[in-house]
């Protein structure tokens, strides 16, 4: 039963991110989403998964709940940027699109993937939906930092897919993926920092000098 609670927590946090108007709430919702993901993984590990799932859950807790959000919040403080996200699509329409995407991922799960187990089907649909919404945040928000968060949300969705569909990837792959995510967040952070120094803003819609 509690797994359903955790799954709904992940989904609700994703919707919060879709309607968030400023950067700090976006990052806090991401932190909470990762926390629910951590709880979900732990509950899977307890209910007879593989022992490596505990390690993976620990990695989520350290990297995605603690380190990465803190790092992002520090970047915001340091570069003193306008905290508004900047919308290409307003929050109401965004939420509507998010609901539509959720429905589409359900359709995809039942029509294309033909999953029989209801629990598995629900979590796959949810994972796919989270991945899509991560992409949505990347595309329809203006600030460069929201693209980083969108990328992380997509990765959360992927992780959820891996955990629910095949009880996690082989351990070495899972471990390197986490390391990889951490490195890429650091590198992206460095670039945000540099862009802010050189352009005095981090609005990606104004990065349009290279064309053709």
């Amino acid at each position, binding site marked *: 039963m509690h797994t359903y609670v955790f799954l709904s927590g992940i989904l609700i946090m994703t919707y919060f991110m879709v309607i968030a108007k400023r950067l700090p709430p976006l990052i806090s919702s991401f932190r909470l989403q990762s926390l629910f993901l951590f709880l979900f993984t732990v509950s899977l590990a307890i209910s007879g998964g593989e022992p490596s799932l505990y390690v993976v859950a620990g990695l989520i807790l350290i990297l995605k709940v603690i380190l990465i959000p803190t790092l992002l919040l520090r970047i915001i403080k340091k570069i003193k940027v306008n905290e508004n996200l900047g919308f290409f699509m307003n929050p109401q329409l965004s939420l509507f699109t998010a609901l539509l995407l959720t429905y589409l991922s359900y359709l995809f799960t039942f029509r294309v993937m033909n999953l029989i187990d209801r629990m598995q089907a629900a979590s796959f649909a949810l994972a796919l939906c989270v991945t899509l919404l991560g992409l949505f945040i990347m595309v329809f928000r203006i600030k460069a930092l929201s693209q980083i968060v969108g990328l992380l949300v997509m990765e959360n969705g*992927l992780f959820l897919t891996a955990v629910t569909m095949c009880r996690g990837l082989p351990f070495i*792959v899972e471990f390197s993926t986490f390391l990889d995510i951490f490195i890429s967040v650091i590198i992206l952070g460095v670039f945000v920092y540099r862009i802010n120094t050189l352009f005095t803003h981090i609005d990606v819609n104004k990065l349009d000098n290279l064309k053709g």
Partner: protein
Amino acid sequence: MQIIYFFAIPLIIMAASFSVNNSKVLGRLNALAYFAILLSTFGLSINFKEPLSFFNFFYVDALSILFLFTISVVAFAAALFSIDYISKDVLSGAISEKKAKTYYLLFNLFSLSMFFVPVANNLGMVWIGIELTTLASAFLVGFYNKKASLEAAWKYIIICSVGIILALFGTIIFYYTASTHAGIRSLNWTEIVSSAKSLNVNIVKVAFLFILVGYGTKAGIAPMHTWLPDAHSQAISPVSAMLSGVLLKTAIYAILRFYVITNICVGAQFSSKLFILFGLISLGIACGFLLVQKHIKRFLAYSSIEHIGVIILGFGLGSGFALYGAFLHIFNHAVTKSLMFFGAANVVKKYKKDNMHAIRGIASAMPFTGLMLILGMFAIAGMPPFSIFFSEIFIAIGGFVKGSYLVTAFYLFFIVVIFGAIIYHLSRILFGKKPQGLAVSHEALSTKMAFIFLFIFICTVGIKVPAFLNTLIMGAVKIVTNN
């Protein structure tokens, strides 16, 4: 354990980049190291008989060695070319001595990650390797820290990360069907291939779509190519050559590994249609942009999209001739495009501008680079007796053999238009009167060696494919047709 060299040597140079103080010495050391790597891949290719496997983690077959050899050829040429290029940048004050050392560090990290991709057996590790190539090269794209290069680097890392995440999604779905329907609890390619027949057909189709779009983004297949012209034009030039020459090919390699599994499971029809579609779109888009392009390095970048289209189309046609041509084209494009990027690098450095409308008379201002660019222009456009002509013709023959007349006709049409575009644009900048006050200059010996080294490959492969390369390509064709 011959593959240990690919990892040990770059690591040594990375360590050296911290301790050696003179960047010029470091550059020479770097070139020497890549010569050693080249020799070891050459040794590996000549002695290749059957697939090698180490610790169930590394797996090296003909397909891997073909890519390893291509990477080491281009990396060696880029290392040679870097010596003079970087030391001139240091002299002119464009970069500091410390930054030059960072360059060699990143260069080695970048090639290390590319060497890792073809030898990993685990498809998840292949994914990690490809993601690492993005991370390592992002700083090389944004190397000069100007507005344009930062913009390009940002787009590069964001678009490629999204692509690569989709690819991981595809990999996970493959793993799902492998573990549920075939009972394999591992992502090793060798194991999945051996029981590919028991995978679920529908799920494999879905997964392959994600793989193709995901890794296709990294490979620069249109319409997911939007990062490519920016990144290739803004990257530091020896790295542009590596991005264009081999980075795109490592992504193709990853697609090919899944292509083999998919073909066994659902039949060749499915992937063939997709490849032909994406190949033609790439050719068409590249064709349009090549006709109107002004910026010299962007011009070469769009030409890379064209050649990736040719390669994908070759794999899509799938007959023996076409596959042979596609593999040969991977090598030919790598060496020819690197040569062109080196030439463009010299031109941009000399004229201090990259707009092709403003550059005239390269042949008289820089005789050696000019000569190489003239020959390279004919080679990249696909003129006999240079190698690209033959691989393109093989693919065309493959299309006719298979009976895909319409596709082949489109392919030939695009190739011909692009031939015209390349000759028109490049001959305008190569010939004509050089601007007054521009002194005639000569290149350093190491730079000339880089050009000649690549040119030897362009010519010899055009005249006759060397026996060892032929064996490798035949082996690779056998792997992808699975017999």
